[in-house]
């Protein structure tokens, strides 16, 4: 017990109760958690990098198929999804901003909007998938789309479903993570002096937006 009391006294000397004992101060801790998150985001970029590589190789192999198949994707929907994710990125960064200026209710509202737009994105994309399913614009041997007969067309839809599918999984995970963070924000766990989980959740959400920024012109505007 005496040791505990001593440890607490030691923490208090350096400031915040959230400060882990192995960090000198909150700033060092924040640098460490951010660096850890950036390393994780780097692995995420490399994960998508493999798919971007597959996209590039098959696009150079089957340029006609890429052009024709891209025209059959729902471009207005793609544009709407892009606006949706960009706006959700904005509300995410505003949630962090409002936490830092100690406006908890606004921060929670922004997080709810962010999650709502994330789920909205999934609904929009689900609707697109449904139409592609009905048309038979599916990958590999399941492809039976009547309107495009270019060689390599099933490859376009394989790459399309893999890239957008992996991205949608990330949107879903991001929305779930933000749901937990929103709950803790509403409980007042975060404030101007401690917002690390909110900060990291935001970084993840922005990465999801960042990937879509590249997917949109690559898939919809070939």
């Amino acid at each position, binding site marked *: 017990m005496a040791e505990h009391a001593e440890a607490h006294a030691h923490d208090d000397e350096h400031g915040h109760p959230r400060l882990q004992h192995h960090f000198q101060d909150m700033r060092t801790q924040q640098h460490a958690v951010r*660096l850890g998150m950036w390393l994780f985001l780097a692995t995420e970029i*490399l994960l998508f990098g493999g798919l971007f590589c597959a996209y*590039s*190789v098959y696009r150079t*192999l089957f340029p006609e198929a890429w052009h024709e198949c891209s025209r059959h994707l729902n471009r207005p929907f793609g*544009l709407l999804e892009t606006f949706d994710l960009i706006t959700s990125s904005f509300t995410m960064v505003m949630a962090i*901003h409002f936490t830092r200026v100690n406006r908890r209710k606004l921060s929670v509202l922004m997080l709810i909007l962010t999650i709502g737009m994330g789920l909205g994105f999934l609904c929009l994309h689900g609707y697109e998938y449904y139409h592609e399913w009905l048309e038979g614009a599916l990958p590999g041997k399941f492809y039976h789309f009547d309107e495009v007969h270019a060689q390599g067309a099933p490859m376009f839809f394989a790459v399309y479903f893999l890239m957008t599918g992996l991205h949608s999984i990330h949107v879903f995970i991001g929305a779930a993570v933000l749901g937990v963070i929103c709950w803790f924000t509403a409980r007042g766990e975060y404030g101007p002096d401690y917002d690390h989980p909110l900060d990291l959740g935001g970084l993840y959400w922005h990465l999801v937006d960042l990937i879509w920024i590249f997917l949109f012109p690559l898939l919809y505007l070939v």
Partner: protein
Amino acid sequence: MAHDAHEHKHSARPYILTVLALYCLTILTFMLGVHVSLGEGSFAIAMAIAFTKGMLVILFFMHLWDQAGPNRLTMAIAVLFVILLIVLACADEATRFPLALPPGSFRSIGHTPPVLP
């Protein structure tokens, strides 16, 4: 650290300007992609716009503008490796002789325009 001084300003203005720029660039890329045919150049322009949008998100939304050097280095190296992967894989594919390419693909033996069943 000097760059941490920015973190304590707490102004929402950069975020609003960033999201407006992102909206404008999205509309621009959509208009160029759908209504303007620039041939081979359109891909390069679309990618240039996407990179600009990506940089805006990374620098201002993800706060890399005022974060420590190692974080920037991590991101830069990840992007560099993806670019290396894509460039080298495409260089490999582009320098193959036709027999090594999948049937029906561009530059392969017997490459024909789209065939109707």
